[in-house]
């Protein structure tokens, strides 16, 4: 089954994949325009090849099917080991080490020579995977210095660095000829990545990275403790803001350390007001959501929440909300959807008293009041990408084959091996599902941000976490607004967008906390536009137009 999508008229004219490949080889001799600092495209518009075709994995079916446009397949139970499918017949390595670099958010792992999991993975790969697990919070620094040294490893998690297209052109292998169109069939697990995802990987008209497809998993959610709301006899869905506020009041009890909101439900309120996901795009012009008229309503509503004393006093410190939510100190917490299963797992290990009844869901977006059209937002389908450093140019097939191995999905022998290790040593089968042994827990390498299959939803032992999340994703998929800037690479957005947004977020926080008057907002929006916001909007429109032409 091929869902290849021709994405440019030129490639349509050229026809078949073979020809496209030929052109690609030619084009490789003259890639890039020296001296140009502004990429005119980040999307796929000006390419002259087919994006890699999509050949979905044909293994054990998920209990809850995914959709190609974002819903992650859900596994209520891990597929039975004897049903697993082998996707890589032979070890992909060539005996020489493959270097890699990826952020690691878990405690440090034992080094390779003292790590049987790592050694097992190496034996499966047929090459030592010499991976540097960089503490997550320091990844930006390490990535910068590594780039400066000109020695990016064979496989690396891309950091959203400035001037990315030029960086990749200078230091990463051009993957177009190896992956475009049907060529990707040589790497079946990479072919399992939806074609749509590869749009994120095209820089200056060439495929420079392998995308990690997250689908709806990147969306932000206002989590709610369904168990606590139900126990208090309160509704879990709300018809408008007034009802929402009443429930929040009802459940808050500062004298006993309980506040409805662990952190401030910024995005949620804006969604209820019908504000667009970061940018409003009418097909031509982009307008930042900071400039949306309804931000005034947002502040009014936000102040009401603050005055009602239903927001945790440390809501704005940016930390600790997870603990507050898990312990029941708070009932709502805004967080990434990735946290869903992690909440269940952490509650089980850290809050054993709560674990029996713990139940969460995403809060459905409501219409703020009459005349408002609330709608949820969804995150970008791709966040992480995996680049291949120039040093791997002469053995690119091997390195791609290793990436292919690491991209094996749930239901494959390889995923079980790279995620759980060797049965008996690193995991055992309990109730039909793999469970890590103590050694496994200490030694396993989470390479999920380096290379991954399109994200699945699984949480061994917590089927609820999977089914409820799947239902919420299905809800989002029908209704949620995309950010029209997703997948567009715009230099001014990367260079200035972050700091401009920080300024606006800081002011938002101050207004909500009553340290600044809401009147300051209008001036700030003007400053935002002057200091770069307008430029970003114009450039976005330009790049957007280029990708559609």
């Amino acid at each position: 089954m091929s869902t290849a999508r021709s994405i440019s008229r030129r490639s349509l004219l050229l026809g078949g994949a073979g020809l496209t490949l030929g052109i690609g080889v030619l084009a490789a001799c003259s890639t890039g325009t020296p001296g140009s600092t502004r990429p005119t495209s980040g999307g796929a518009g000006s390419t002259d090849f087919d994006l890699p075709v999509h050949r979905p994995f044909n293994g054990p079916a998920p209990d809850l099917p995914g959709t190609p446009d974002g819903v992650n397949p859900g596994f209520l139970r891990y597929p039975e080991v004897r049903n697993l499918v082998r996707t890589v017949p032979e070890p992909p390595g060539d005996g020489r080490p493959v270097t890699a670099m990826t952020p690691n958010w878990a405690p440090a792992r034992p080094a390779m020579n003292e790590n049987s999991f790592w050694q097992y993975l190496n034996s499966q790969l047929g090459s030592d995977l010499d991976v540097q697990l960089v503490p997550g919070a320091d990844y930006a620094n390490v990535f910068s210095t590594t780039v400066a040294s000109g020695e990016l490893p064979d496989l690396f998690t891309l950091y959203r660095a400035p001037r990315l297209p030029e960086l990749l052109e200078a230091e990463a292998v051009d993957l177009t000829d190896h992956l475009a169109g049907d060529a990707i069939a040589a790497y079946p697990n990479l072919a399992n990545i939806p074609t749509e995802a590869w749009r994120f990987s095209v820089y200056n008209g060439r495929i420079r990275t392998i995308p990690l497809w997250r689908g709806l998993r990147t969306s932000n959610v206002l989590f709610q403790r369904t168990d606590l709301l139900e126990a208090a006899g309160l509704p879990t869905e709300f018809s408008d803001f007034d009802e929402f506020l009443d429930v929040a009041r009802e459940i808050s009890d500062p004298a006993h350390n309980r506040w409805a909101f662990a952190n401030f439900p910024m995005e949620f309120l804006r969604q209820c007001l019908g504000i667009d996901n970061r940018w409003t795009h009418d097909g031509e012009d982009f307008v930042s959501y900071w400039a949306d008229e309804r931000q005034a309503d947002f502040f009014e509503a936000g102040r009401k929440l603050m005055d009602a004393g239903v927001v945790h006093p440390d809501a704005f410190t940016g930390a600790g909300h997870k603990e507050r939510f898990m312990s029941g100190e708070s009932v709502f917490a805004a967080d990434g959807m990735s946290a869903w299963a992690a909440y269940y797992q952490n509650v089980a290990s850290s809050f054993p008293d709560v674990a029996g009844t713990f139940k969460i869901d995403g809060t459905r977006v409501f219409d703020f009041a009459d005349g408002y059209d609330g709608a949820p937002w969804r995150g970008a389908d791709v966040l992480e990408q995996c680049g291949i450093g120039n040093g791997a140019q002469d053995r690119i097939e091997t390195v791609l084959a290793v990436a292919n191995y690491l991209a094996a999905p749930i239901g494959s022998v390889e995923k079980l091996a790279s995620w759980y290790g060797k049965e008996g040593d690193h995991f055992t089968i309990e109730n039909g599902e793999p469970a890590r042994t103590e050694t496994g827990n200490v030694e396993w390498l989470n390479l999920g941000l380096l290379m991954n299959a399109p994200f699945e939803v699984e949480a061994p032992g917590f089927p609820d976490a999977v089914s409820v999340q799947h239902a919420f994703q299905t809800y989002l998929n029908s209704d949620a607004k995309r950010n029209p800037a997703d997948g567009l690479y715009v230099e001014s957005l990367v260079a200035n967008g972050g700091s401009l947004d920080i300024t606006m977020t800081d002011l938002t926080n101050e207004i909500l906390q009553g340290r600044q008057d809401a009147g300051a907002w209008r001036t700030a929006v003007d400053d935002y536009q002057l200091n770069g916001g307008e430029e970003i909007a114009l450039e976005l429109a330009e790049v957007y137009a280029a990708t559609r032409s």
Partner: protein
Amino acid sequence: MAAVAPERTRLATAAGAPTRRRRRRNWTLAVFAMPGLAVVLAFHYYPLVGNVIAFKDYLPFVGIWDSPWVGWDNFGVIVDGDARFWNAVSNTLVITAVQTVFVFPLPIVLALLLNSLLSERLKRIVQSITYLPHFLSWVIIVAIFQTVFGGAGSISAFLRQHGYDGLNIIGNADAFIALITAQVMWKDTGWAAILFLAALSQIDTELYEASAVDGAGRWRQMWHVTLPGLRGIIVLLFILQLGSSLTVGFEQLILQQPAVGLRASEVLDTYVYNQGVVGGNWGEATAVGLVKGLIGVVLVLGANKIAHWLGEAGVYRR
């Protein structure tokens, strides 16, 4: 006594060893200096060359030498009065001023207090306790302050249970300077006292004895013996502090920026980081760092001059 010692040191050389021997001795000294100087040159000066990127449109992946020259463009942010830049400058200056006034004297006071303790054992115990926080990383200190002083922290919870409002310190831009100053005090006062204690231990006992014989009381001893004994080190540290007055705790601030916002917490060093490493404006960030360094040099040289006028040795004297 102090004033005499250097004279004598000078005499030592003038007191004429034959030229030939002196030359050999000089050479030995150069050998002595070699390892240290080599490290300084290799890791402080050799990389300094990298500051040329202040005049370039530096792209890390192109390299320092191949990035295009842009003249003084990167300094525009300073000249043009960029709002974020000046916000960083003013925060830096305010924080330094507050910390100089409130933090700098504390270790001196602590050292004097400790020095006046009669029991050596007690002195050592107190000292050992007070230097401990120095070893905590900022991550931990920020976390501790948050759990103790946060809006839902230990103190706030206690207040609320007794019918009062909780504290509003953490994440409050208006209380931010007080908060970080308290953190610095808690962390480093005991540690900084070590140098002063070392200096105090060097004060000649005879001076105290002589003044006691002259009938000096405790305060007079402090004024006429102890403090003069500390003057050199105080001046030295003060000058160094001036030199680094544009540098305020990077890690401490960057950890707390998300909570409190950039308006209150952006200082020059975090600005350079946010612009450079995070924002990719390497050239601009380096230009700001360069100017900052130059101002530091001017401040130290100036302060040193003033110290000389006041008859102090200062940081250096040739």
